[in-house]
């Protein structure tokens, strides 16, 4: 009896243990199960305000998840506020959209913008103590070109080391802003440290910035702590990447309502890029403060250029669609009223944007006019397909509603990121594609979307419009980037309704009012730079 009792208990325990044992127990070398417990939800007095956490760690909620800390990344998440905390880059873009040298001490250009000579500081060390030389930078550039994750890097022809701390870069294009962008995306990391890492910095990372990573869990959180052995003299650090806050945790929260919950329960002190529908709830609440970022990213509706699609060669149909959509309605429904209409396919923050466009008509919403245009078109009741990411389904639904109102039959195709990525450049797979657009310069954006030679299938929507192509090429040179040439492209795209700028949503950062913020510093994307800002009560 006793024996059996014991046996049954043992078996029950075994059931548990075996599962735990099967996966090696709970201890892991470098990733603690619980990070430094950011905050404690306060018991009881839910007075609607936020409570002080005062644990010295600034916890920030942010939607863009990283699965790995690898320096070899695609454009996805490149603007995330924690990227500058991981790796120092040669230059950084400040809130005035100016490139400022960071790890680069100096650089000179020759050869009409095709060749650059760069010098880096000679005292750079990473958090593991490795000394960084020009070899490391050359290695990084070469690896990045090989990885082919960022299109800009394919325009590098050669990289040569010219001294211990100097190197030369030759480009195949002298497009405006190209080299600056390369500087911004060239991370300073030690080859030795990278090669010593067992998984290419995926879970353990040696940083070169003023911070070191003290905890990381893919898709969950990343924690930073200020380095004592930072190499740079603080006076030489650009203001937007200064290191003021001693400890920072980024908590990845992908879902809007969770962001609100996290902020209210004190799980995070601040949420960067909170969706407007959630953010508006905090605008009138004195316990929270907010910052509305300038509209860096706009929503654009692209029309397929593939001949098999009804919209491809039917200007009237495209114009009808543009006229049928009410940007104000979209702003109300999608951005809770916080957004502005667009007057170009790019947001006004892009370098080269002409403010005069804002006062011109841009397919003003008019249901009757849209019906008239539709009548003039060749549209015969076909089912048009809107492609969008699954997270933007609602916007597609609203557009579906508007188009339905003038008699256009629309089908939605909302796909997850993986599937979307696979077909978004293939115009045969959709009639319309909703995509978010952000660009530093108009030229850069145009080259990605409207250059008929950009991809095997044509431009970003499989269109082969060489008239437009020629206009674009004119703007690419330093001399050709003139208001006149830019205007030409703008009006061509607008009049032919090649794509349609839907609206610019306002983006919000919300934080506890009692964080004790002094002198907020912003990064180029318009987010508060959490490291550079002083918080007296984090």
């Amino acid at each position, binding site marked *: 009896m006793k024996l059996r009792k014991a046996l*049954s208990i043992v078996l029950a325990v075994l059931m548990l243990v075996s*599962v*735990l044992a*099967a*996966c090696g127990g709970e201890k892991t070398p470098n990733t603690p199960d619980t990070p430094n417990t950011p905050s404690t939800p306060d018991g009881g007095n839910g007075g609607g305000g936020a409570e002080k956490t005062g644990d010295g760690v600034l916890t920030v909620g942010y939607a863009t998840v990283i*699965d790995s800390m690898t320096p070899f990344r695609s454009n996805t998440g490149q603007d995330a506020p924690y990227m500058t905390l991981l790796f120092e880059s040669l230059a950084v873009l400040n809130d005035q959209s100016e490139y400022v040298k960071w790890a680069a001490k100096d650089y000179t250009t020759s050869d009409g913008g095709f060749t650059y000579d760069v010098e880096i500081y000679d005292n750079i060390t990473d958090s593991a103590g490795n000394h960084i030389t020009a070899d490391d930078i050359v290695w990084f550039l070469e690896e990045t070109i090989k990885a082919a994750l960022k299109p800009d890097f394919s325009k590098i022809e050669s990289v040569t080391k010219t001294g211990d701390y100097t190197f030369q870069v030759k480009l195949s294009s002298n497009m405006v802003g190209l080299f600056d962008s390369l500087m911004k995306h060239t991370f300073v990391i030690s080859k030795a440290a990278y090669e010593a890492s067992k*998984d290419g910095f995926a879970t353990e990372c040696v940083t070169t910035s003023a911070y070191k990573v003290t905890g990381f869990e893919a898709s969950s959180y990343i924690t930073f702590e200020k380095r004592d052995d930072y190499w740079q003299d603080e006076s030489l650090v650009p203001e937007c990447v200064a290191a003021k806050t001693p400890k920072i945790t980024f908590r990845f929260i992908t879902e809007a309502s*969770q962001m609100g919950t996290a902020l*209210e329960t004190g799980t995070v002190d601040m949420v960067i890029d909170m969706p407007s529908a959630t953010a508006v709830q905090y605008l009138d609440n004195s316990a929270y403060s907010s910052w509305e970022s300038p509209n860096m990213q706009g929503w654009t509706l692209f029309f397929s250029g593939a001949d098999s699609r009804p919209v491809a060669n039917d200007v009237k149909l495209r114009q009808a669609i543009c006229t049928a959509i009410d940007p104000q309605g979209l702003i109300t429904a999608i951005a809770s009223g916080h957004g502005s209409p667009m007057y170009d396919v790019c947001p006004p923050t892009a370098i080269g944007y002409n403010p005069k466009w804002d006062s011109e008509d841009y397919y003003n919403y008019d249901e009757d006019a849209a019906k008239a245009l539709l009548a003039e078109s060749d549209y015969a009741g076909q089912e048009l397909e809107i492609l969008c990411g699954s997270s933007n389904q609602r916007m597609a639904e609203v557009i579906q509603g508007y188009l339905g109102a003038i008699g256009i039959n629309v089908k939605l195709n909302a796909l997850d990121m993986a599937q979307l990525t*696979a077909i978004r450049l293939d115009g045969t797979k959709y009639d319309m594609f909703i995509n978010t657009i952000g660009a530093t310069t108009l030229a850069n954006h145009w080259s990605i979307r409207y250059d008929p030679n950009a991809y095997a299938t044509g431009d970003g929507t499989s269109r082969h419009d060489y008239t437009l192509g020629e206009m674009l090429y004119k703007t690419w040179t330093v001399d050709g980037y003139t208001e006149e040439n830019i205007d030409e492209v703008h009006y061509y795209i607008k009049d032919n309704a090649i794509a349609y700028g839907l609206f610019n949503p306002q983006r919000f950062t919300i934080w506890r009012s009692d964080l004790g913020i002094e002198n907020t510093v912003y990064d180029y994307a318009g987010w508060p730079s959490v490291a550079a800002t002083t918080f007296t009560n984090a």
Partner: protein
Amino acid sequence: MGRYIIKRLLWMIPIALGVAILVFTLMTFTPGDPAQTLLGATATEEDLNAKREELGLNDPYFVRLFDYLGDVFIRFDLGNSWITSVSIIDTIKIRMPRTVILTVVTLIIAFGLGIPLGVLAATHQNKWQDSVSMVLAMIGVAIPNFWLALLLVVAFSVKLRWLPAMGIEMGLISYILPALSNCTGALANCARQTRSSMLDVIRADYITTARSKGVPERSVIYKHALKNALIPIITAAGTAFGRLLGGAMIIETIFDIPGMGTYIIGSLNNRDYPVVQGGTIFLAIVFSILMLLVDLLYAAVDPRIKAQYASSKKRKKVKANA
């Protein structure tokens, strides 16, 4: 008994192999090009081809299948994630315990409340306690747990501020809300099973015997009746454990628990096939081991079943039950 266990363990090999083939095949037919996902939309055709070559996506299906099976079953290596190049086994080691904790907490709540509720219903058969318990159980089964999760978050995190709504930073406390929203189904099933099992047992002659011996009513119920009634409940617990282990995926997503569920779902969205395959195979093996343990536990609790195992002729019958 020893031979039985060995036989069952050996059976797990073809099952794991089958699971591997099944998942691998499913992944092969998933739409979306992993190379494209990894490199982004702007990658050129050459880059994509090079990446496909690197990942082995250009090889014929069978070549890749056998390569994969060789890795998993001969070298015992689930491979690395395509996205992060982190070893899958290492990630599982970190994530699995969290899923296990969530499941265990869920089970504790479900059976901790379900058994007394079932006993209450059975001992007050046809009285109001019975009706109330059973209607509660029915409602428990009917409420979708992700919906309950949303409501609980609003109530306990947003309004009352008692419990954290996401993450696992607070240790065990973090698991309370997820477990509560995840437990309803198991709780209800447990309560119903306990009730019917208890009712069967309470009517058994040996319970009358116990009463006639002067055993206090409480002992009659909890010592004599419940112990017998527990036999089917223990099987239910084992099965529920297995099901919850795999079924907590949506709850993990809602509560942002970095466990196996979020790992596999996230990888599915990123077309990180090795992770989906590795995770699934791992869960399948854990699940099979669990089911074996349930059978053994069953034998340990009920001396009659153990006798059956001993006489190998009756093994078939036991298997049918399992």
